[in-house]
């Protein structure tokens, strides 16, 4: 609001969660506000919440009821935990029940509604009321004759309320072509709020819209609201701007290799992650692993389960070595399991908003977000998802949404994926009669992520990522990968063995050669010995012959010379 304005429209906080946000402060103070809507859309609840909030914050209020008696009101709101009796005792609240029976009242001449004015004035005076509710003043038209006089008196009534500085809430039943059946909007020009309760595809939603707010800016959209044991709460999520913080903190996925694939540290805190994959690719397992890791680090995780019951999830996740039960016991993990078709999209949105605000998680998981699609048209779903994601981002909550893809068709996700900071795709590859899972990071904003596809193995020790085999025959996973690796090993072994054999052969040849050499050598030795011996003998013989010759000569000499 512009504070330099001299005349600032003063506002009364309504006490209705979210309404003060879209009205920028509450209802116009000291002026009447018209709440219109069809039967059962929450008009009385709205009015009562407004009064009770005032009563508890120094602005006593009068509830002028034309329909329910004081006792009925007390009972109805006691079941919502509002103790009207206590407020009455403390003189902060008062019910003025006005009863009319048309058949009992005969009009015999000119009249006015001074009696009503006196009663209102008296009630206001008794508790020093600052707020007043008229629920619903239109009953006058059916309870009193002479519409002409009534209209004049209504005009006077609204002027009277203004003159008394009462912040008033006037309820009115929705007419066929008008906001209220009797055209109350004609008199209340300051602020008009419409409550709506459309049923689309048999699913009921509640919407609130500010039709006009004189002298103030306000949100223009239809906002969904929730009516439960805490009264009305509005989720003004469309009023969010794109100005959320962008922290540099990381949050680990709980799967080391997956962290590595995204630069080593995991997701950015407060980012939104989309996990797509067809049936049975392990989306929930990745989500559960992530959740477990969050809790291990002492942070809080909230899981919206749209498909399985918490007990079923816990049982199933034990099979991959993820035990979530202890974290639930410690209050770090919370499951919110609902069938998406239980209520309308907008109601889902408000429920999510409420639970997130109560539980204040660090991480929110939607498993699977694609189930919400069954509740509305793709456009509506997208609009709701945008608001959920924006809201959680604003709260710095990391969001992991799983989404089912049908045999590679991700049309519905493409719209969503542009909202997401990180998109991880799980696939199942069918080859050689078996199905194997792969994981890859399609995108992750602001991170240097891996472009490699990894194989993703679920075992009873959790999730493991392994490199897939990339070879001349393409990408191989599972047993094909294993057999390929085995084949390669065998081939390598074979090659090694061949070398060894050759080496052995060489060795043997060398040995053979050496043996031959040895043999020749010994043969030569033998022959040499023999020859030596023969030579010796020959030499000896020669010597003997020489000696004999000498001896003969000597003998011849002695005989012949004589």
């Amino acid at each position, binding site marked *: 609001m512009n504070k330099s304005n001299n005349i600032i429209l003063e506002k009364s906080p309504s006490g209705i969660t979210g309404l003060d946000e879209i009205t920028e402060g509450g209802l116009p103070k000291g002026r009447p506000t018209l709440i219109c809507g069809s039967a059962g859309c929450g008009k009385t609840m709205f009015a009562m919440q407004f009064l009770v909030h005032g009563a508890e914050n120094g602005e006593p209020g009068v509830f002028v009821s034309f329909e329910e008696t004081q006792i009925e009101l007390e009972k109805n709101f006691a079941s919502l935990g509002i103790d009207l009796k206590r407020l009455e005792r403390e003189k902060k609240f008062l019910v003025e029940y006005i009863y009319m029976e048309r058949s*009992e009242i005969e009009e*015999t001449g000119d*009249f*006015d*509604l001074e009696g*009503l004015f006196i009663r209102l004035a*008296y009630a206001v005076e008794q508790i020093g009321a600052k707020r007043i509710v008229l629920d619903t003043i239109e009953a006058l038209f059916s309870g009193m004759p002479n519409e002409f006089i009534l209209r004049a008196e209504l005009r006077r009534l609204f002027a009277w309320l203004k003159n008394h500085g009462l912040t008033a809430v006037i309820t009115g039943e929705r007419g066929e072509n008008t906001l209220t059946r009797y055209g109350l909007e004609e008199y209340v020009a300051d602020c008009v709020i419409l409550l709506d309760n459309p049923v689309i595809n048999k699913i009921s939603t509640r919407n609130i819209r500010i039709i006009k707010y004189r002298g103030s800016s306000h949100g223009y959209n239809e906002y969904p609201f929730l009516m439960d044991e805490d009264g009305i709460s509005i989720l003004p999520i469309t009023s969010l701007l794109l100005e959320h913080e962008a922290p540099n903190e990381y949050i680990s996925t709980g799967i080391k290799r997956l962290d590595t694939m995204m630069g080593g540290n995991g997701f950015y805190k407060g980012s939104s992650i989309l996990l797509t994959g067809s049936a049975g690719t392990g989306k929930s397992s990745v989500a559960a692993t992530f959740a477990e890791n969050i809790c291990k680090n002492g942070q809080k995780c909230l899981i919206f389960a749209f498909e399985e019951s918490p007990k079923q999830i816990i049982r199933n996740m034990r099979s991959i070595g993820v035990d979530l039960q202890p974290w639930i016991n410690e209050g770090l993990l919370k499951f919110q399991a609902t069938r998406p078709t239980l209520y309308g999209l907008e109601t889902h949105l408000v429920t999510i908003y409420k639970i997130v605000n109560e539980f204040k998680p660090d991480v929110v998981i939607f498993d699977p977000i694609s189930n919400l699609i069954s509740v509305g048209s793709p456009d509506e779903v997208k609009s709701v998802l945008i608001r959920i994601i924006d809201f959680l981002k604003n709260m710095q909550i990391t969001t992991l949404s799983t989404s089912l893809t049908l045999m590679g068709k991700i049309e519905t996700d493409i719209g969503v994926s542009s909202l997401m900071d990180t998109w991880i795709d799980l696939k199942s590859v069918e080859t050689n009669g078996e199905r194997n899972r792969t994981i890859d990071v399609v995108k992750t904003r602001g991170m240097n992520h891996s472009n490699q596809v990894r194989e993703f193995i679920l075992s009873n020790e959790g999730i493991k990522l392994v490199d897939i085999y990339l070879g001349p025959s393409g990408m191989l996973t599972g047993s094909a990968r294993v057999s390929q690796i085995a084949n390669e090993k065998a081939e390598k072994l074979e090659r090694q063995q061949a070398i060894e054999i050759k080496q052995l052969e060489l060795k043997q040849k060398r040995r053979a050669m050496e043996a031959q050499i040895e043999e020749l050598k010994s043969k030569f030795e033998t022959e040499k010995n023999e020859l030596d011996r023969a030579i010796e003998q020959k030499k000896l013989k020669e010597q003997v012959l020489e000696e004999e010759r000498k001896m003969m000569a000597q003998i011849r000499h002695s005989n012949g010379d004589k």
Partner: protein
Amino acid sequence: MHSDSESDNGDGTDENGEVWNLRLYVAGQTPKSIEAFANLKEICETHLKGKYKIEVVDLVENPELAKNDQILAIPTLVRKLPEPVKKIIGTLANEEKVLVGLDITPIKSR
């Protein structure tokens, strides 16, 4: 219808001592209040002579009294007795409607 009632009932008066207890709610001495009181007085004198009692409640002075009889319109006339309680609103200018509203058996005008 008016003439029928006249002829049917003649000038018969109530013999069993029936008391008409009427309460007129007004808010201050406004022209409407004064007119209503005058009209009421005349009707009673005409039709209920001697057996009626009029109580005027000024809500400006006693606003708390409005709630009991569920008064919204001013003036409002409440027939407290005889029972059941009946209520008519306005200045009581339309005598015929007053008589019907209060269930008074009209007496032939003098």
